[in-house]
């Protein structure tokens, strides 16, 4: 694992390396170099299998984190490539030419996070939601409870105990 990261370092800049466990590491790379590094990993280093592509919303830093989790089926190691992009007008270079399933992931990210992937096939088509008018639902500033209460006629008289508070009251009243 270490030698692979060293080899990437000779060509590209990596800002942060986290070794989560022996066969899984995460590296943080810049937005401009990301697709180039992923292509290098796929073609030269044997990370032929894309496990997943997903995003996380770090609203306090005003950033989206994109994670490309790559897998090397012969060496049996995983490498997560993290890219931080700005939350304003979030947009990322498309990787649909590398794996066939990436276009689907990007369609989902566009819909659920509002991250744009220009030139990705069918990226603007709705994937999961139909007729959605609010902000993309996986963003942190979207309040799903509030939306549900406003839209779906909550049944009056439903007593919902927050388990944490309820258990505290019952089991640890003095804590």
């Amino acid at each position, binding site marked *: 694992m270490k030698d692979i990261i060293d080899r990437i370092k000779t060509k590209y800049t990596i800002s942060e390396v*986290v070794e*989560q*466990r022996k*066969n*899984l590491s*995460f590296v943080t790379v810049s937005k401009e170099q990301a697709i180039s590094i992923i292509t290098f990993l796929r073609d030269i280093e044997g990370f*032929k*299998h*894309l*496990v*997943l592509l*997903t*995003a*996380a*919303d770090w609203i306090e830093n005003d950033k989206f*984190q994109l*994670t490309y*989790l790559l897998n090397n*089926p012969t060496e*049996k190691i*995983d490498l*997560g490539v993290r890219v931080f992009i700005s939350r304003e007008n979030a947009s990322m270079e498309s990787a649909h030419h590398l*794996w*066939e*399933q990436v*276009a*689907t*992931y990007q369609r989902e990210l566009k819909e659920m996070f509002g991250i744009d992937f220009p030139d990705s096939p069918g990226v603007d088509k*709705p*994937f*999961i*939601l*139909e007729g959605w008018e609010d902000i993309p*639902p*996986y963003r*942190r500033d*979207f309040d*799903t*409870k509030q939306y549900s209460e406003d839209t779906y006629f909550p049944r009056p008289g439903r007593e919902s105990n927050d*388990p*944490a508070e309820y*258990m*505290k009251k019952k089991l*640890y009243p003095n804590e």
Partner: protein
Amino acid sequence: MNKKRFTINEDRSLFPEKNAEGKIDIDLSSHKYLKLWQGPQHPGITGNMSLELTVLGDEVMDCETHVGYLHRGFEKLMERRKYIQCFPIVCRVAVPEPDFNEYCFASAMEELAGIEVPEMAQWLRTLVLEMSRLQSYLMWIGGQSGAFGSGIIGQWSIYLRDLVLDRFEELTGGRVYHMYQLPGGVRGLLPDGFKQRMEETLLTIEKFMDDIDKVMFNNAVFKKRSVGMGYIDPSWVNKFGITGPNARAAGIPLDVRKDYPYLKYPELDFDVVVGKDSDIYTRADIRRKDLLLSVDLIRQIFAKMPEKGDIKAKTPNVLHWKVPKGETYSRAECTRGEYGYYMVSDGTEYPRRINVRGPSYTHAVALLEKMIINTNIADVAGLMVSLHTYPPEIER
């Protein structure tokens, strides 16, 4: 007797020319093509998913997969629940195999929190995962034969699945959703006499599997419709991210149980089942052998597991459990392929982000859309079931 085998599409002159990109320019107003929707309704095997087919005659020319009918927004719901509150909802992501969700969620959390699961709990988890695999395959086998017109296998296999669900009910209290694998361990030990009753169930399953072998796998109709149908090229495996039995049928021995050993699988003795023809028949055969392998593994687990032991590691108070900052990915081999949870923690009591990686994500959209071209409408259902797609893991 005419020895030449009849093939549907021998004369291609009636069919449209392909353009430079290798695709067909479909002009719906030319009255040659017809839009046909398959789904979203279903009789209980495949999950709600619809295929928008463009057909010429009875041949599929173009296909688009539509998902989202079962979207509940789990990944959002988990962000506003504490870790322990996520535990009862993760199993609802995939109905046929809830236990893989529980295991992946628990193991990702344990890895981040640095908790070592006791030995006995690991054995019980292995047992529950194998039982879950068994019942899911039994469900699938009914769907596969039903898609090719033989309903009787479904009648038998759903009955067998009910027997496995009875054992689940004894062990965990739930028939379909078990909520058994708590973060840090499991909820309970085996009940008295469980091993013996499980053995009886396994014997019944083996007996019925002999019958299913005769009625389904040696059936001329099933063979004729499935052999050579739905070919997956081995070179597609990495290109499309194919895992599980679909990849193994193409001759690529991908099995998370062997490649990234988890729980007690390193101590169990088994070989990865690999096929080579990569058609619907081979995939069905791989799954049948995998099912029998599960039966064998359950027996091995019973022989090797200790009688008693700790079933739960010491964990912090779950109400104030702050999982340290970090991110990880945990995976398990489910019946369709690699199941994984990607978990990001920001050091608070709530998970920052959890992403569920279901194997159907690649199988049902990109791969199916490619494979379905130029098949007959009647074979679409069989092809879809042979990939063992399950839409809730696509949309969560």
